[in-house]
């Protein structure tokens, strides 16, 4: 078993943990964290295959895509946080369920 295989399998597990978290957790912030974990899984699979395709250096295209992706994911998470905090301020809700 090689290094990239360990991490590519880990990436699948992380993605599933994230997608499960999106469904199962209730609190807004936990849902946002879950989407970030999903993203982490996707990025990990990209970079693990970049390592597999390495010659003298690892494949730079997935690396560049992942750097772009991390920044975009953080920008969207910041927007989600702004929405969550605004919802809490206006309604007092901390989750999508009806109970308060």
């Amino acid at each position, binding site marked *: 078993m090689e290094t990239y295989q360990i991490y590519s399998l880990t990436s699948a597990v992380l993605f599933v*943990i994230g997608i499960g978290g999106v469904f199962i957790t209730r609190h807004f912030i936990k849902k946002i964290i879950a989407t970030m974990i999903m993203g982490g899984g996707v990025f990990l699979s990209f970079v693990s295959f970049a390592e597999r395709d390495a010659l003298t250096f690892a494949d730079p295209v997935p690396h560049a895509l992942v750097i772009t992706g991390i920044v975009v994911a953080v920008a969207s998470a910041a927007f989600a946080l702004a929405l*969550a905090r605004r919802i809490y301020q206006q309604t007092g809700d901390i989750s999508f369920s009806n109970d308060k």
Partner: protein
Amino acid sequence: MSLIIDGLLAILAIYLALQSLLAPRLTQSVFLFFAFGLALALAWIRLAAVDVAITEAAIAAGFLGVLFLDALRDFAPRIPAKNEAVQKQYSKSQTKSLFLPRLTLWAGLGLFLLIALEAVWKIPEGGGLTAAAGTLLPESGVENPVTAVLLNFRAYDTWLEMGVILIGLLAVFAAGGKMAYRKPGVASQDPLLRQVILFFTPVLFLFGAFLLYIGKTGPGGAFQAGVLWGAIGILLHLGGWPFIALMPRWLGQLLLTVGLGFFLVLGFLFMAAGGALFEYPPAYAGILILIIETLAAISIAAALSAIFALLNQIGEEADEIESTT
């Protein structure tokens, strides 16, 4: 030996991800997510992706962690214990009627895990684009292949990404319901915070500039530098000097858009000269990339500190509402 390290790191990342979702308290979740980001950063280093590791540690763990911590001011202290008890009771009473959907959800997740594992196991050997990038590297004007891809071969992506950050800032602006940044209040009297700001501002600036310049030959570049410079903005904001509110409106807008704008003007100039969008002449590619990276880092730093300032402002208004009622 390396297998053991990789295996342990993989287990650590999975454990931290699980725990950050399962932890009963929100504060724990946020700190475990911090740790998860840093564990991932170690994994990037093991995969020889140092550029990604710096970005992950700086933006995904650092900057996003700060935003989450700031959000805790809203959420964490004001959820009374009673509320949680009510929620638990609610979820207990619902357990029976939700049994079938839950079973389906877990079975679906298990199935999905198997599919995902099989998918990543069977990704065909394609060879990737390493060889193509390697051949073109001398023409790109930089020696670090990742910087070459980011700012030369796939400059289009990077340009659009700067647009995404700007749109993210506008969206946060809109969601916050603000007309303007808060004008500065009193400078913080906390002696420790003042010292930290005095000490770290030059260090962060220098380190950011170093990362920006070294991006030409080694790991580093505009995004990493931008986040470090953004950290200066966040520190100053916390210390009571929100520079983005202090500067005139046009200057703030200029700083936010200069990266995107310069990129765009440059791209169209190349098109006017008969080339493709972002097709740099190889002779000037190195210096052009450095200028673009500097301006991009300035824009990213301004955008990140503005996002923090706006999110911070949402919390402060909530505090005021709380204190008046």
